[in-house]
């Protein structure tokens, strides 16, 4: 079952109705489990294809239970074993191909299950979980169908506590989430994807440096915007679907392109992943290094190293091939270079002057544009393979790529600044005590418009394509 889709939405609504009809907590837990398993079954009903997936889940459960019974016992070993098992099942390039399973099997959502499982294992090993984890609760947490395929990543404590009561307002807000999520994915990101395809298709026809520069700029700029609408639309949609069950999922995006540096960018993009890595990679790594080198003058540089390691993992986690390792290097390199620049500049000009510089609107606008352009450039290794990358480089040439990068930086600086200014002006408009743009009536107008566009596109694209419309003949 594709997420987001109308099919998934119908499934979620049906499951939510059954869930709320069950008044007893244990019954609701059972409904949730059945829903999660039915969602998995929509990918494959052949039990044999689920064996590695089930083994991973079983291993995780037994490990958590073992560590809950004996907190602290060789936690690092269990973490390493879990990582290796995950990499083996996901067929990461770091595992020798001779060791990999050759038969096909299902790995849907395994990357996100991995994060949930790791947090369970580490927390259990550190004695965070006092309650013994039941098998049903474990399965409902790790297999939560609303966020199985692409997150957001939620820690177990948050999952347990993030419940609220369903009211008409909550349902309205869930509908708002669902419609705007579908609109972002099905309309906006689809249009951007078509545009990107057109740009790629037109590459052979571009000959002059100006045409190459424009093409390079579009290739750098379109994909991050597409990815934003695609992924944030998905997240918005699943947050709305989870709300139908009274479950709160964490936010994943916070206007990432308004970030003035790459460090801030990653606190606004895929937030649940950043937060997870902060808790389980960055903080422990930095603490460990600080224990070894506790001199205060060294600590900022240790943070640079910790940032590199953390964001290298962010990039590398996205895929199994060598392109993603390079993507990880670019993410880690970008973040650590950004941190190093901050450290060195602060040392050179002083904290106050650095703060004043960072607050300068022109400086912030240029940094914003540069952040966007850098992210767009690094994404080449996310959506292309080496052969395609070689093709782009050959067709466009280094000069056009460099000029395209500069053009994106300049245009993004202006456009993003203009967008921020417009937003702030709109937010200033008040009626009585309410911001007009946030009033439920204005939101309803926008949502209705989005729903109409979705409906029309659904009607057009899901009915027979036109052939001959004989109006009167």
């Amino acid at each position, binding site marked *: 079952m594709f997420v987001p*889709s*109308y*099919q998934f939405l*119908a499934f979620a609504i049906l499951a939510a109705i059954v869930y709320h009809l069950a008044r007893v907590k244990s019954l609701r837990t059972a409904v949730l489990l059945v829903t999660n398993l039915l969602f998995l079954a929509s990918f494959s009903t052949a039990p044999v294809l689920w064996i590695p997936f089930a083994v991973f889940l079983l291993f995780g459960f037994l490990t958590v239970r073992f560590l809950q019974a004996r907190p602290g016992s060789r936690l690092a070993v269990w973490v390493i074993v879990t990582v290796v098992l995950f990499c083996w099942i996901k067929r990461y390039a770091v595992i020798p191909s001779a060791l990999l399973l050759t038969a096909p099997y299902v790995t849907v959502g395994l990357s996100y299950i991995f994060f949930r499982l790791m947090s369970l294992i580490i927390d259990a090993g550190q004695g965070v979980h006092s309650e013994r984890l039941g098998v049903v609760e474990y399965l409902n947490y790790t297999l939560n169908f609303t966020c199985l395929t692409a997150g957001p990543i939620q820690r177990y404590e948050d999952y347990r506590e993030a419940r*609220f009561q*369903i*009211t*008409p*307002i*909550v349902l309205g*807000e*869930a509908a*708002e989430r669902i419609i705007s999520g579908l609109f972002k994915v099905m309309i906006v990101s689809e249009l951007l994807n*078509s545009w990107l395809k057109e740009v790629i298709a037109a590459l052979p026809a571009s000959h002059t440096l100006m045409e190459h520069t424009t093409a390079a700029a579009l290739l750098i700029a379109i994909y991050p915007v597409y990815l934003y609408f695609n992924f944030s639309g998905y997240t*918005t949609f699943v*947050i*709305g679907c989870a709300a139908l069950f009274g479950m*709160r999922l964490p*936010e994943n995006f*916070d*206007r990432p392109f308004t970030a003035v*540096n*790459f*460090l*801030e960018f*990653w*606190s*606004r993009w895929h*937030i649940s992943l950043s*937060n997870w*890595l*902060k808790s389980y990679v*960055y903080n422990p790594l930095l603490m460990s290094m600080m224990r070894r080198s506790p001199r205060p003058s060294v600590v900022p540089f240790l943070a640079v190293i910790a*940032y590199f390691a*953390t964001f290298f993992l962010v990039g590398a986690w996205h895929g199994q091939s060598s392109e993603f390792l390079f993507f990880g290097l670019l993410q880690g390199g970008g973040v650590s270079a950004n*941190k190093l620049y*901050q450290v060195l500049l602060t040392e050179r000009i002083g904290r106050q002057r650095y703060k004043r510089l960072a607050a300068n609107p022109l400086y912030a606008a240029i940094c914003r544009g540069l952040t966007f352009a850098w992210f767009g450039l690094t994404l080449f290794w996310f959506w292309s393979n080496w052969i395609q990358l070689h093709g782009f480089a050959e067709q466009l040439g280094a000069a056009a790529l460099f000029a395209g990068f500069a053009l994106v930086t300049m245009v993004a600086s202006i456009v993003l600044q203009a967008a921020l200014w417009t937003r702030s002006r709109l937010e200033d408009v008040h009626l009585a005590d309410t911001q007009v743009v946030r009033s*439920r*009536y204005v939101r*309803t*107008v926008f949502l*209705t418009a989005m729903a*109409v566009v979705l409906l*029309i*596109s*659904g*009607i*057009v*694209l*899901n*009915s*027979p*394509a*036109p*052939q*001959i*419309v004989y*109006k*009167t*003949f």
Partner: protein
Amino acid sequence: MSGIEPAPAAVERADIDRPADKRLSLRDYLLLFLTVILTLAFIGCVSEFGARLIWPQQDVDQCETWVGENVTVAPNCRATVKAAEGQWVEYHYNECASRSAASCGPKPANALRFVTIGTSISRGYWVAYSDSFSGRLEQSLGRSCKRPVEIHNLSYSAYQNRTWETAAQQTDRAMQLDPDGVILVVSSFDMLQWTPPSSSGGATAPAASSTVAADFVSILGQLRGSAGDSRAMTMAMHFAFEDPDRYLRFFIQHGDSADYLRPGMSPAWHARLEMVDAAVGKIAAATKAAHVPFFLLLAPLRPGILLAHSRAEFPDLDPNAFPNALAEIARRHGAVFVDPTHLQSTAPNWNELYMVADGHPNARGHQLIAKALQDALLENVGALRTCAASPAAGVTRSASLQPAQP
């Protein structure tokens, strides 16, 4: 600044994160409902008004009178029509109610006269007569042969269950015109209008008909049907399906109407081909008795052209299945088969030959049909063999034509 600290203001966060302590009054519910209704009305009116302003349409042919599924056309009548996606054009019907520049009286001395039997494409629906394949042929053959060439269209409605009986019934009228050639124009859409009694429609459609998704799709289909006359919807369809890949992928999902593109074809399409076979047999018998060459012209539609162009991407489909079946029928009855598919699918403007939402060929599409038909006529009509092919009216002789010989 710590890079992975959560951002201070999570502005994309909706009210789901806040405690559900707010209540709506009845007044709020009513106002919200009214807001939705007014927004819908506003969007509907503005988009429809805008679409009608940008793409006006006159689809009522004032010369036509419909009685049930049959249409009669007033003789010596003129009508002005326009497809939403097309240009304003004038239809002129002669004294025999045929869309032709020539009179249907006795054939003038030295003139060559051809009769086409077919439905809308044959009549040049939505295009100026000079842009239709008939008009182009009259011009180009007239110039190259240096003698008058007339083409008379005996058109009938495709919207009937007796399409092919009606087609065969036109034979007597055609022969009364003393033609030098008779052309039966066949399109897959004409054939689709006849549903075999035992046919289950889209039996071979790959869609999972029992799923929730399929039910939803059918609801959407009904909605689309009810919004069929909306110009905004026509516009939406035009832009949604301009992309050939998207068009083809959606088209092939819809069972019976797309089954003629599948290798082997469905039983329903075999039954339809039998109907065409019978009609072709009757016309062929009459033309053979009068020693008049008979042509079976396939009027391709956009799906077939797109498929022929990008065949490799759709290995489960066969763009030649339908043309081959018609070629076999033509061969069996001694007719010359004319297939413009290759000319259209290899043309530089292959994706611009049809009106996307309406489906009829535009002037460019007619030009290539004319080119294919001209080659066949020059090849097979004795009186035309001495004519040099003329590039006039945008029609040049094609080397790619291979008529099916008896």
